[in-house]
């Protein structure tokens, strides 16, 4: 039952373009191999049937594959090519500079700050959103009046378009904006800040808004995972005299493991590629305080017509995301797909 929730989460969480792409890709190729291998042993007698199946596969897979190649593979290869040239976007690619663009980027203090900021956001997002998400999900999983309404309200920030939410926050966080006015009016005047104009505060501001925006996703995914925790286990625990708190800690949270890990994966990838919210709130400023790899790419790369350099930064961003994603996949998510997992889990539950 937990597997269902685990299966559903990647499809439900098209949080980022990368997530969508990775969700599409294994699906497409997985289907293709599974189906083309299966009819093999049945022999050549069923060749017309086999051809029909192949046609079917081609018919269903080709459009997705084509889109994937044209919009993902080709741009990545192009970026890799541009990244070894110095190119201002005009005229031919004829100034080959080798790895110079990569060396410049890696040696640039602001890019280093961008990488640090991305990693900080990735770690803090999980550290902050996981406890909040878990608590609210557990709360919303109890039966009470207005449960559905509460679930919708909690999820609303995530559904709002990023740009709309960003612009509204930006307006509220102006020096004379609603947020400071609110703090003053409830007697917390000491907490008023130049939310977007103070280099020391900007990252805090970005984290606040990101938490507000994305904790809804964590809650919904965890709620979905909670549906997969069998009711009987709770009943059994209750009979054994476990308190509500003990039940959650010993039964619910361990059973939520796969969901939590999948959410962590999505959150991490989203944090590494973070662009839109930061761009709207601060443009990576003030004074590069909240710069991320993606805003750096736009500001120092494309805004300065340094398309070769921008491509090199994009490739570095790609490599960092790819390596971290693979590491996470093999070290953490593997536990959920390994063969021995069901046996282990049964043991855990039985304990």
């Amino acid at each position, binding site marked *: 039952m937990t597997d*269902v929730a685990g299966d559903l989460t990647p499809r439900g969480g098209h949080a980022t373009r990368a997530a969508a792409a990775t969700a599409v890709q294994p699906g497409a190729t997985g*289907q293709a191999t599974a189906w083309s291998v299966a009819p093999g042993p049945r022999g050549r007698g069923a060749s017309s049937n086999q051809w029909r199946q192949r046609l079917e596969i081609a018919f*269903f897979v080709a*459009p*997705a594959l*084509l*889109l994937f190649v044209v919009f993902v593979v080709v741009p990545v290869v192009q970026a890799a090519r541009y990244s070894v040239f*110095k190119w*201002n*976007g*005009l*005229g031919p690619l004829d100034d080959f500079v080798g790895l110079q663009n990569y060396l*410049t980027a890696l040696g640039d203090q602001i890019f280093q700050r961008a990488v640090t900021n991305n990693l900080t956001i990735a770690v803090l997002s999980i550290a902050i959103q996981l406890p909040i998400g878990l608590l609210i999900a557990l709360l919303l999983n109890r039966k009470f009046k207005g449960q559905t309404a509460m679930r919708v309200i909690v999820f609303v920030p995530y559904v709002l378009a990023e740009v709309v939410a960003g612009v509204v926050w930006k*307006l509220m966080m*102006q*020096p004379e*904006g609603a947020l400071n006015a609110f703090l003053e009016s409830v007697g917390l005047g000491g907490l008023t800040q*130049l939310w*977007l*104009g*103070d*280099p020391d505060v*900007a990252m805090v501001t970005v984290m606040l808004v990101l938490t507000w925006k994305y904790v809804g996703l964590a809650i919904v995914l965890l709620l979905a995972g909670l549906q997969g925790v069998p009711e009987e286990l709770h009943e059994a625990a209750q009979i054994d005299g476990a308190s509500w708190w003990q039940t959650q800690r010993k039964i619910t949270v361990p059973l939520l493991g796969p969901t939590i890990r999948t959410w962590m994966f999505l959150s991490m990838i989203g944090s590494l590629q973070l662009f839109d919210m930061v761009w709207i709130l*601060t*443009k990576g*400023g*003030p*004074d*590069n305080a909240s710069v991320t790899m993606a805003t750096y790419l736009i*500001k*120092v790369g494309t*805004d*300065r*017509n*340094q398309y070769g*350099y921008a491509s090199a930064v994009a490739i570095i961003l790609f490599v960092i995301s790819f390596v971290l994603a693979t590491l996470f996949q093999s070290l953490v998510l593997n536990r959920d797909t390994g063969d021995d997992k069901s046996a282990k889990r049964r043991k855990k539950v039985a304990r």
Partner: protein
Amino acid sequence: MKRTAALRAVALGAAVAMIATACSSTSGTDEPTEGAGEAVTLTWWHNSNTGAGKDYYDQLADEFEGDHPGVTVEVTALQHEDMLTKLSAAFQTGDHPDVFMERGGGELKEHVEAGLVKDITDDAADTISALGGSVAGWQVEGQTYSLPFSLGVVGFWYNKSMFAQAGITETPTTMDELYSAIDALKAVNIEPISVGAGSAWPAAHYWYYYALRQCSQDVLNEATQTLEFTDDCWLRAGESLEELVSKQPFNSGFLGTEAQGTPESASGLLANRKVAMELAGHWEPGVMQGLTDDEQGLGEDTGWFAFPAVEGGEGDPAAQLGGGDAWACAEDAPAVCVDFLEFMLSADVQKGFAELDMGLPTLPSATAFVAAPELAQLLAVRNEAPYIQLYFDTAFGVNIGNAMNDAIVTVFSGSGTPQGIVDATVAAAATE
């Protein structure tokens, strides 16, 4: 079983959706191609996309079509930032308009090197000589590539009633006078100056002006050519800026403030009477009008004064920082394109342009028709300036310019130094 059925349904749905998008995207690229015929079509992009300015340009296009049978002028009016973005994309794909706006400096040089702009030195010789010195910013190696139609200078726009409230009777002409104006405004609880440091270039204009005041014209010209900043006047420019920043004259949160566009932007703060002044170009009255409810901007309270003199500087105190817009033809545009440029710079067209306050006309005969008093005052300062330095970021091109602007912002935030500005600029120049 139920699950696989559901999965199949989902897969089918997804496949159908993908086919649908695939089909629609191919049909979307099916652009109508231009019908081949004797008729010539001129495509023209401009940025007067609202009100009387847009109507005026539409009317000019009709007039030109009337005078030149067989010529169709296809006008596209775009919001300024949109136009710049689309233009830069258009130049990369080769699908660019015949007539477009050039801002001179490094950007024009790049376009010339890439063979995108028509050399009009001989074809438009008469108009070029009528425009005189204004054309200088649009020449590359002695050849002229576009005709400037508006040329403005940067100065302080201020709120007259706020200055009166603070007891400031004379507008500042030296830095010391500016400092005492700042103190006087602070004394009556008015934030003295708004600056859009979040957008970088409005903050950079301060350093540009200090460089203009500290460095002699020879040093400036040499730096624009050689990209070397060895003279210590460049450092003194940064020190002057540090001194101004240390007086804390700027609106609260200025590091996150944008240049224009919203009521909280630097221009919006001035227009909505939250601050007393702002350093900005000739576009400011128009920008402010769009940022207030009554569309009047500061109205009667709008005042202007030139950037003050800096004591001990080697630059001419009357020299101004400025820039402008010019019309250019694409290299592959039809020959009639040059006629269109000359038509746009004819006395009548420039007169109408001036009367509508669309900009500051470059043709000397048209300058008398500028209606708004503060703009007329600005125009007088422009015409008396011994030389007008093009905004450094435009002059050096977007790569060096943006690196320089970002470094200037670090001085505003207190994390950078005058030497840092020079270093960042030299480092970016090395990547050219």
